[in-house]
């Protein structure tokens, strides 16, 4: 799975977690850009990504990514 496929599938996960079909991911996007992306939603996002891609982040890893671009890269590393 390439980075583009990962991004497309991540977008679907974001839309589910935030119940918003208008979300479009971009590499620079951060929590400040998405309605409802608080600390609780952050965990829901993390476990939803883990369950959807059947991957596990190392403990604390997810919280270190500063934007969506870094997240896409991290997921792509794990599924490739």
């Amino acid at each position: 799975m390439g980075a583009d496929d990962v991004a497309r599938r991540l977008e679907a996960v974001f839309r589910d977690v935030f119940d918003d079909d208008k979300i479009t991911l971009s590499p620079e996007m951060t929590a400040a850009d998405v309605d409802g992306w608080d600390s609780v939603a952050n965990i829901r996002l993390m476990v939803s990504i883990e369950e959807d891609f059947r991957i596990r982040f190392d403990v604390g890893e997810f919280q270190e990514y500063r934007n969506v671009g870094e997240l896409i890269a991290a997921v792509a590393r794990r599924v490739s």
Partner: protein
Amino acid sequence: MVEPALLPWLPASPPDYRAHCADIDTMAQRGTALRRLAGHALGTNELQRLARSIIQAVNDGTAAPLQSFALGLVSNSTTDFIVPALIGSAARHGVALRVAAAPFGMTMQAALDPASELLQIRPDAILLALDYRAYFNDYALDDDPMASVSAAIAKLQAMIAAFADVSKAAILVQTIAAPPERLFGSLDRHQPGTAAWLAAAFNQRLSDEVLRPGVNLLDVEALANCVGLAAWFDRSQHMTARLPFANRFIPLYAEHAARLIGAIRGHSRKVLVLDLDNTLWGGVIGDDGIDGIRLGQGDPRGEAFQDLQRAALALKRRGVLLAVSSKNDEALARQAIREHPEMVLREDDFSAMQINWSDKATNLEALAERLSLGVDSFVFMDDNPVERAQVRSALPQVLVLELPSDPAEYAAVLLASGAFEAIGFSDEDRQRSEQYAANARRDSLAAQSRDLAGFLESLRMRGTFVADGAIGWSRFTQLINKSNQFNLTTKRYTESQVADYVAAPDVLTLQVRLTDQFGDNGMICSVIACPRDGAWVLDTWVMSCRVLGRRVEEAVLNEIVRRALAAGIGQLVGLYRPTPRNGLVRDHYRKLGFHQDGHDGDAERWMLDVASYEPAALPIACDTSTAA
């Protein structure tokens, strides 16, 4: 094995799930649609979305017919993820749940402060969601393990007592699962002070000492064991977000908690309706013949169907009624049930059968009529997805189990569904099947009897009235919460609320039992009368529909009047609060000689002057007593 965490007995959620939620948000009455959507196998995000719609509906006052229920949640872990799952899952069980959670780490203070949000919502139940970490240390090797377990049990008992002082709520307590890591190895089970030993000792004492009427069990250890301890405990998620167990088991946990709430509200189901071909046996009896169907030992596939029959028989023994709905030639199907040597279930095990070529929904309605029960008490099992879809669409009140293609899983799916979740097991439950069979014999006697009076005399009925009985109030409460049709006010009470009425010196609680020549009907009527200005207000009057048309209500009124005279009560005030289900008793008080006198809130008020009441002669002999 089918994966229990994915709720395999429920159909998969529709692909445009979130659009469904958004549609519901615009409806005028949303409860039915919310319950229907909740009846799918929903994941955590789907439950979260549904919870938003439910909360919105509760706030808008459009959640009917879901029943309101307030839950206080006390936890030593994060509750943010569990609360929406509980709300979504409760709708599956007919409940519009409101939840107030005590802040993390504040459990005892929350219990004791009447101004806390937890108590301000006036909880109907309080869930003490405490896990292993609330009581014991990780990697334990406790020096004084007996004292540690005693302290843990005492801590729990103190919380329960503190809540009992300030609230009438039912309490839900949890068993604890021990983390799977072992210090010694197999020795851990035997070595006092290890995690495995502490958890086992705690759970045993919880079951022996803590559980009682009003304190019910959510067996979390059983859930953890069912899915596997290594999967249940997720240390990374606990370190990251203080999740008590892995996120992916939240829907399963919430479903089990919601079942318990449904059972407390009396929503448990009573009847298992089974298809025959490829459900109770392999093959099609009309094509394969009695010698050709697959059933029994020596053939793995045949063994699978026999396994389901054994599970169904076990359910029957605990009070679940069995029935058949099958598209078949009736004579041939009945012959197979009677004569096939490997059948575990025989004709006598079924309370009713509909074997014909009509559609299944029609047949389920016919079964409901025969058994005097609502289809909302039915669970339906059929291997054919088309039949399942037809019943789901025509009769959404029926729980239609989703079945995997492999019959080896049928029994497991049936039991995992928890459709018959119960908070107690009474002699009435044990005898229920026999009672319904006796009903069928009574009906046939009625058909033979030319006149009703002669029929009733021939039943040789004997009523037993017990006022303020300390025994039997579990069934007393169950009747109040389960009865929908013969229920004058449709008030619901927890066991602790009932216990308060029983203890109050000026409130009459009346238990009525009925026997006749065909057997013991058990407790069939609950009445609560509260004093008001020298009168008794009949706050609650419910009766089992099994004894309709037998003048039992007149005997009950005679007894109430007799006790009113003895207590110096001048008037009886009957209340009738109409619901979609209780039209049956619209004229109850008129028929008993009350006269209508305005309204009490949304209830009709009916009055009876006690002194001028003249009891009629009845075909029911009466015994009466008051508990000490």
